[in-house]
């Protein structure tokens, strides 16, 4: 990309630099690194050997003149300016590691140089890539491809299981008005447990054992296990939302629940927790 391409649309806010008669406009750049690269190119030396001190000066000068013209500068331009000013101040001082093992000024300068080189190299690669012969622009495939006739070989996935399910379901529905339904596993849904717990909140007086809060129909056998698990999960969810408080004194001990929306006096009632 040439200078002219970069800046020709921006006469109104253009800055005329006396020394290089360079027309510069902030909006023409793809960020501070692009601006730095343009300035570096103007030094007309290998970017690997560019003087970072000189580059920093040019950049800061540019930012100053932009400020004088009241140009809106994006924050990252100012961040870069601050960083370059800092780098510059360190470059003129004796080299030493910064606080917390921060790289030396030379290392920082090398890193900036390297980033400029890399951006430059990627730009060049980009130009080469876009310059390739492109399909349907420079080279062409067959203009009138001949279609392939697809003959579909249809097979069916239906199995004996499908056949029997269809038969039993269909006939049962016709005769009994019932449909076949697999037996539901005895599982208390967490949503159901939570709904129940929420409804009970107002009625729980102080700490109550979780197991006393199970639905009556769910207090035996496998149903009880599921009910305990789901109610605990529901209680944990509600504790996260601050709706209840939970307490367990030891691993595997009884878990207690109480309304979490009581006043700030909760700490005092802690002592009265059962099982303590």
């Amino acid at each position, binding site marked *: 990309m040439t200078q002219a391409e970069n800046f020709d649309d921006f006469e109104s806010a253009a800055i005329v630099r006396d020394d290089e008669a360079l027309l510069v406009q902030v909006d023409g750049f793809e960020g501070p690194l692009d601006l730095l690269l343009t300035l570096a190119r103007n030094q007309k030396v290998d970017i690997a050997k560019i003087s970072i001190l000189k580059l920093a000066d040019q950049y800061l000068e540019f930012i100053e003149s932009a400020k004088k013209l009241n140009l809106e500068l994006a924050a990252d331009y100012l961040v870069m300016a601050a960083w370059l000013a800092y780098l510059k101040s360190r470059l003129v001082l004796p080299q030493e590691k910064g606080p917390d093992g921060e790289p030396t000024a030379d290392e920082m300068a090398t890193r900036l140089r390297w980033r400029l080189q890399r951006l430059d190299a990627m730009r060049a690669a980009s130009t080469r890539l876009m310059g390739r012969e492109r399909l349907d622009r420079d080279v062409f495939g067959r203009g*009138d491809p*001949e279609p392939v006739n*697809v003959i579909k070989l249809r*097979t069916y*996935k239906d199995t004996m299981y499908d056949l*029997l399910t269809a*038969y039993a379901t269909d006939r049962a529905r016709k005769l009994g008005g*019932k449909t076949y339904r697999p037996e539901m596993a005895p599982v208390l849904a967490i949503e159901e447990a939570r709904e129940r717990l929420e409804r009970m909140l107002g009625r729980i007086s102080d700490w109550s054992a979780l197991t006393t809060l199970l639905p009556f129909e769910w207090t035996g056998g496998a149903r009880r296990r599921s009910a305990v698990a789901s109610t605990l999960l529901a209680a944990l969810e509600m504790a996260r939302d601050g709706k209840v408080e939970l307490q367990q004194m030891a691993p595997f001990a009884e878990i207690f629940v109480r309304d979490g929306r009581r006043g700030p006096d909760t700490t005092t009632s802690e002592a009265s927790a059962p099982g303590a």
Partner: protein
Amino acid sequence: MSSVAKMIETIENEMDAESPEANPEHLRMVEALLFAASEPLDQKALSTSLPEGADLPGLLKALEAAYEKRGVNLCRVAGKYQFRTASDLAFLLRKEQPEQKRLSKAAIETLSIISYHQPVTRAEIEDIRGVAMSKGTIDILMEIGWIKIRGRKRTPGRPVTYGTTEAFLVQFGLESVAHLPGLDELKAAGFLEAIPPSGFDVPNPSDELSADEDPYDPNEPEMATGSVNLDEA
């Protein structure tokens, strides 16, 4: 020299004979133009793209000859030119593509009823299913080849009876329709509730003609079967 080389030598000789002056660069151009064109090109269209003085008729003749025995030929259609794959290779441009499908709910239900209740008439299927059947359902099952017309029932209207085919047995892994699970087996396997609705009986299907069934004669004139249930109504 290999056979390929011999083939090309033949082409070369032909070209040599027919167009002793074809310019190879011009030949490349015509080749590219015809290849990239989305429709056949006539000489006028071609010549506007070629350098002045190009011998278009000669070039076309040379190309025609060069491609004559190839997998691609230069063809003349309606006075225009076009590359086409050689007609004897058309079979290559056909592709078989396997496609897996599932029967519709109506179709699999109908199939299951036919398999258990065969020989069964359309009206009987509708009675068991409790819904009128769309014409397509039977057609699809016939087309797949899983059901066939077995005979005619000796009832008014002599409706055709349907049964399953050997392809059906192969698809569902059955040795014979008599091996379809009975009521108790359906229950044991969990397809039916422990206490099926009253009236749920599972017939013993058979390939044999039943007592009230005549073998199917495709030449017998078809009676209107309609969708009115003549049997039971």
